[in-house]
């Protein structure tokens, strides 16, 4: 039986879908079978981010209502051996699926896949309840903004109420320079409030915008910091101990020199 993990955040636009696509691709690149489930019915995006939009025939709602078999709705990503997508419906809304149906689909997927990754919609209503219904573990994504951290805190409370204990935290879009200048919440500030284990930190990176628009997960990009951050997150999900990387590796040379001699 595979692991069923939901990726959630409360707030919209913090990077749930991007993270789901990259973690799914990352797991596949490491040789695992991964199924991505887009639970954002009515606002489906995961297929677009993965560049698989034009291959959708059946979707999650069709499976839930018995219009097709689960296998028929699964889209195989030919670039990543082992990666499959169960797309959301675009013409329905969140009420088209019930939590029990979602749970049943996830369980069925976990029989065949090593990892089932659920991309949760923003908000804490029906869509959220559907997405977490089938999950055994949770990854909470936040950005270093007070509002995103507040929503993450709310969501962690709701996850605990849904028996999803000890969620793991991913901090997205961190700008090390702004943190150093004291203009952005730092990692410690966020952990201090949320009090959960950190799974990874992804720096703000223009590459993500480019790769996401192209439908090409950034995790393949060997040279980008965000790609490396996602590769590290994938390895940590697999249980490998990977230290947090130096987010200012490509930073100013003199600054690094100053830091090396203890002046930074």
């Amino acid at each position, binding site marked *: 039986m595979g692991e069923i993990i939901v990726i959630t955040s409360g707030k919209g636009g913090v990077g749930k879908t991007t993270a789901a696509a990259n973690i799914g691709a990352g797991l596949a690149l490491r040789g695992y079978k991964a199924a991505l489930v887009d639970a954002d019915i009515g606002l489906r995006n995961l297929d677009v981010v993965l560049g698989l939009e034009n291959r959708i025939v059946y979707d999650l709602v069709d499976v839930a209502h018995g219009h097709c078999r689960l296998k028929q709705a699964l889209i195989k990503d030919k670039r990543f051996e082992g990666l499959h997508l169960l797309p959301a419906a675009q013409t329905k809304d969140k009420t088209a699926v019930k939590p029990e149906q979602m749970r049943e689909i996830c369980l069925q997927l976990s029989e065949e896949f090593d990892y089932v990754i659920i991309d949760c919609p923003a908000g804490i209503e029906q869509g959220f309840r559907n997405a977490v219904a089938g999950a055994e573990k949770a990854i909470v994504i936040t950005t270093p903004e007070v509002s995103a951290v*507040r*929503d993450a*805190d*709310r969501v962690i*409370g709701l996850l605990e109420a849904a028996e999803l204990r000890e969620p793991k935290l991913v901090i997205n879009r961190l700008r090390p320079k702004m943190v150093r200048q004291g203009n952005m919440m730092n990692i410690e500030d966020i952990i201090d*409030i949320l*009090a959960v284990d950190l799974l990874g930190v992804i720096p703000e990176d223009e590459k993500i915008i480019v790769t996401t628009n192209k439908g090409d997960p950034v995790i393949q990009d060997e040279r980008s910091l965000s790609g490396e951050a996602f590769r590290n997150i994938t390895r940590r999900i697999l249980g490998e101990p990977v230290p947090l990387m130096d987010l200012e590796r490509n930073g100013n040379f003199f600054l690094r020199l100053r830091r090396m001699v203890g002046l930074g």
Partner: protein
Amino acid sequence: MATDPGQVRADPRVRGAEENQTVLIQRTLRSGQSIFYPGNVVVLGDVNPGAQVAATGDVIVVGALRGTVHAGAGGDEAAVVIAFRLEPTQLRIAEHVSRPPAGMVPAGQPEVARVRDGVISIGAFSGAGERQGTVARALVPYDLEAESDSEK
């Protein structure tokens, strides 16, 4: 409505007979979570921003208090709020409402908030059963009416 500055009505969500009982909350209260209790409340964890505690008696937070707390919600002016890290969004005791001054630096030690001369004041909490602490700083009294006027 003729209310004195900084006044707030008793919280109607604190229901039940007022007894001198204490409830123990053995977890962190996260945003959106709340406790309303007719008695004293002890939280063994943090009260995060967006969380709310209201009690007719004292409120003690064995952790960081960053949310909103109302002690003496039935009108008890002698009620106190004690926290290891007292950094509330807003603090209410009986009918008084206050908020920390802008740019307040955390004290780095347990503190107690109580009503002194009609104002919620904060002092170091020296523990050992002692309820009195030296008043270190006063919170800014929060004028509900003035605040709502400024929004118009």
